């Protein structure tokens, strides 16, 4: 038992407030466990009954379902499995999320990705919760997900579960617009060693090694990955390239001491060296090193065939370091700064964000009970301690800590065979106060294979530590000038969402269709407006950014996802998104002026994936993605583009080993731009080889 109230040190008073509160939560879970960990689960049975024969078996691996059948889910859900990733020839996160309706995925720099759902094209999208095996990887320091620091090899992914819609009632504040859970392959699932090598244009080199084995009674998977590329070729032509050199390591371990308990112990780190900056001024590119590490413990306890309990504890640590030496000040700033009152001394000008760090401890317990085949219930408690340390973002405040607590519950009730109600709620308590995010849905089966869903959700999002405390200060020689950026007293952002969805499963035609119409409104959205101040001399910029709850976004649209298997060897997947954004933001307070960003979502976007297995050795496929023109909020106007990728795969066996060669052609048509007009994506050809040793 992990947290027994009588033995755990965590239950005793601690001088650290955050840890003390986490301890309290641990105690609560300990008590829960002591109640639930009896061996009643395997108490002697008189006889086998029909309920035993018909009981649920948790879905794993190749199956695409979840604990909750898709036609009973309160939200639209997309599942991207390993086969789909392989069939699409995806090589990075942008490639993967362009398979999902409603998502915007782009490369801000060649190796710095931004992904959002119904997003407006921010450099740091902040409304999508992303988890890896249930561990949140949302970074409070930049209020976004640093995708390149996840340290996950795409080959290690079992499936990605994507909730397309506000999911704060289940995952909390950061799942404001949607949630993603990346589920990696269980160590027990594979055996032996896999070697993967990718080589191709832009000096792309990737070597990955995965080894599965067992040590005593523990099964483990060890993954090591090295990546290198030179980034966008055109960026390379102007100055420093925006390539990367990255290394990651992950160890996932599963222990199964007995039939009703299993324990996962995961550790990992990743390091990426790349360039950060605006490609229109590559001379100001900052070489940056992202470093992250994590530790995770997850315990599954089967109380009975109808009840289980999960406890998870993890720690994330993230550090980014970035500085650039731009040369002597005298070559960069006007001469008058060397006189009074600034009295600047000529010296090397070091530019960048230096070091920023964040750390998170999170503990969560979750209990699930299936009362009958008509009523399921989940309840959970969580506690989190986060800290952020950055001179750039927080000025002289240095390190800032924050604790938050959450309790959540969800129930699924089917009063009649065709009708399912879902009701869920999250209550979060943080420095911001207590936030309540509810959701209600009604699913009606027109026919066992045709379901209508009507759902409504309210979500609230607490601004992250950095959003709340950010303050940028300019120092010019002896003179400390007023903040270049300041933050007002922030309130929570709020979202209201209504969806009408239709889900069809046509097993006779091997077809599924997921279609939804939605309306959502974000109020009190966080954005920046400009304000003038007088501290700077007139010949310097006298405006600064102020963050406040000044934005309203109202989005209407439709999303469609269709899969079709016309035969055993062919797979077709089509998706389409229509987005209509009506927005209003304060541009300046004095005088009061407004602006909008209505063109910051692509109105039409969609994709097609076709894969055909020609025989046991060869398969071929194409992936098509089209996006309308868009004026990204923090990026450039990007003209509409269509990207066509194609793959040919050859599978072979040599001795006791199996191998796969995949020739991937990316963007076989015209060049297009990623986020900034200087980021020109050209045609690329790559070869991917994998070899599995027993």
């Amino acid at each position, binding site marked *: 038992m992990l947290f027994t109230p009588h033995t755990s040190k965590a239950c005793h008073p601690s001088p650290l407030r955050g840890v003390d509160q986490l301890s309290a939560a641990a105690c609560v879970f300990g008590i829960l466990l002591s109640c639930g960990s009896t061996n009643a689960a395997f108490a002697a049975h008189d006889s*086998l*009954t029909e309920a*035993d*024969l018909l*009981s649920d078996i948790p879905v*794993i691996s190749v199956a695409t379902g979840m604990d909750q059948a898709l036609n009973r889910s309160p939200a639209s859900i997309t599942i991207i499995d390993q086969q789909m990733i392989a069939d699409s020839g995806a090589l990075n996160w942008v490639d993967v999320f362009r398979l999902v309706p409603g998502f915007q995925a782009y490369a801000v720099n060649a190796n710095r990705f931004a992904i959002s759902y119904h997003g407006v094209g921010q450099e740091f999208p902040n409304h999508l919760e992303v988890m890896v095996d249930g561990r949140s990887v949302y970074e409070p320091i930049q209020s976004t997900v640093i995708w390149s620091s996840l340290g996950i090899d795409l080959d290690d992914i079992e499936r990605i579960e994507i909730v397309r819609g506000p999911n704060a009632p289940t995952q909390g504040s950061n799942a404001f617009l949607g949630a993603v859970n990346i589920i990696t392959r269980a160590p027990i699932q594979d055996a032996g060693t896999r070697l993967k090598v990718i080589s191709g244009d832009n000096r792309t080199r990737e070597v990955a090694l995965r080894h599965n084995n067992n040590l005593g009674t523990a099964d483990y998977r060890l993954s090591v990955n090295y990546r290198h590329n030179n980034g966008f070729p055109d960026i390379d032509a102007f100055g420093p390239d925006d390539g990367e050199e990255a290394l990651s390591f992950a160890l996932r371990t599963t222990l199964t001491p007995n039939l009703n308990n299993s324990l996962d112990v995961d550790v990992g780190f990743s390091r990426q060296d790349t360039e950060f900056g605006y490609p229109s001024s590559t001379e100001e590119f900052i070489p940056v090193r992202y470093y992250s590490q994590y530790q995770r413990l997850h315990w599954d306890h089967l109380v009975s065939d*109808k009840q289980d309990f999960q406890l998870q504890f993890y720690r994330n640590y993230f550090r980014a370091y970035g500085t650039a030496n731009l040369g002597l000040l005298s070559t960069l700033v006007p001469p008058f700064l060397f006189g009074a009152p600034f009295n600047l001394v000529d010296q090397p000008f070091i530019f960048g964000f230096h070091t920023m760090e964040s750390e998170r401890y999170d503990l969560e317990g979750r209990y699930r009970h299936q009362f009958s085949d008509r009523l399921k219930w989940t309840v959970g408690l969580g506690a989190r301690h986060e800290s952020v340390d950055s001179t750039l973002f927080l000025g002289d405040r240095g390190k800032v800590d924050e604790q938050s607590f959450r309790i959540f519950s969800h129930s699924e009730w089917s009063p009649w*065979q065709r009708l399912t109600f879902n009701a869920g709620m999250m209550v979060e308590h943080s420095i911001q106060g207590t936030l309540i995010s509810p959701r209600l849905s009604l699913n009606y089966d027109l026919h066992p294979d045709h379901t209508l869903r009507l759902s409504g959700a309210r979500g609230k999002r607490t601004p992250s530590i950095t959003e709340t405390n950010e303050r940028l200060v300019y120092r010019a020689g002896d003179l400390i000038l007023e903040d270049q950026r300041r933050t007002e007293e922030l309130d929570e952002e709020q979202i209201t969402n209504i969806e009408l969805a239709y889900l069809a499963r046509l097993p006779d035609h091997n077809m599924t269709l997921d279609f939804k119409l939605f309306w959502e409104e974000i109020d009190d959205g966080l954005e920046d407006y400009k304000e003038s101040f007088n501290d700077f001399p007139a010949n310097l910029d006298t405006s600064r950014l102020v963050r406040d709850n000044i934005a309203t976004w109202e989005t209407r649209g439709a999303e469609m996802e269709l899969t079709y298997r016309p035969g055993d060897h062919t797979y077709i997947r089509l998706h389409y998104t229509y987005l209509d954004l009506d927005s209003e933001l304060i541009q300046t307070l004095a005088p009061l002026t407004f602006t909008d960003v209505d063109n910051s979502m692509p109105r039409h976007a969609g994709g097609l994936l076709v894969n055909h297995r020609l025989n046991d050795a060869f398969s071929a496929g194409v992936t098509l993605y089209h996006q309308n023109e868009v004026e990204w909020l923090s990026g450039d106007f990007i003209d509409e583009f269509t990207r066509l990728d194609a793959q040919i795969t050859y599978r072979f066996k040599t001795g006791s080993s199996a191998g796969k060669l995949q020739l991937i052609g990316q963007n076989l048509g015209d060049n297009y731009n990623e986020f900034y007009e200087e980021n020109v994506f050209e045609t690329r050809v790559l070869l991917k080889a994998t070899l599995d040793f027993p």
Partner: protein
Amino acid sequence: MELLAIKSREGLVKRIGGCHRYLRWGLIVFILSCGSAQANTVRLLVSGEQNYYRETQQHFSSTLLALSPDTRIAVTVLGDSAEQNALLAPWPEDIIVTIGTPATELAYQNRSGKKTINLFITSDVWQRLEGETPDQKNVASVVLDQAPDRIMLLARILAPNARKAVTVTGPISSANIAALEQSAANLNFTLAAKTLSEHDNPVAAMSPLIKNSDVFVALPDSAVFNRATAKWALYLGFRSKIPVIGFSKAYTDAGALASIYASPSDIGRHGAELTADALLETKAFSAGLHHPRYYTLHSNPSVAKALNISLPNESALYKMYEDALVKRP
């Protein structure tokens, strides 16, 4: 056809103390009548409101009325209280049909000497009840679980070259090892079986077993045992590229290559045919245990693809299975 509440006709409400209590117990009593004065009558006792009971009831009723249109079916859905359910007996109808274990137990407790047909129970429950009240000459039971030879036959069809079959058993299914071994031998399999207790490490126990096998056969045990072992069996099966043969639709959906099981419609149909035979006296009443006459095969093409196994479509699989059933040793 008309649907009438019969509470006043049978004085049932009076017996159990008024409409409120009647509703509170969750007792719902209906008549499905065809309007004939000399109709055969059947009392259908349903164990609860679960979907699988309802589906069995629907298929039983529709099949029986097609075979014997003059039949009147009175349906009683049991409540949660065994004491109050016991007050429902005796039943005046010609034949008693039960669906599910609670209803079957109630019928055994209230032996009337009338012909009774029990549906949707397991052979385990049947053996227990027969042991408690032997020599039930007027009781026939259609059980849910498939005979071991049917499971092994599916394994043989889907893994024609397999030599070694393995299984793990729990406290209940360990009793079936001998029968499974015999079935395996008849189909040229050698069977290795291991019995797991709750203290066993499932992966450590199953890993060497599955690694040295050609096919894994899952036997039903208690629901919690099934759930605790299925995940690891499926993972290990994938790892060793060994197909898993399951015993339910849920098992196949979770990752087994295929399953054979009796669905509610299979049981309802079989039960209705037995009932019609008894009502119309077209055949001598066959007391005792009946394995399901009809069965459902459910396969998972995604698993077949992952294991690189050539899987016929379900209609072709049915044909192959039927042919093999006829030709089996």
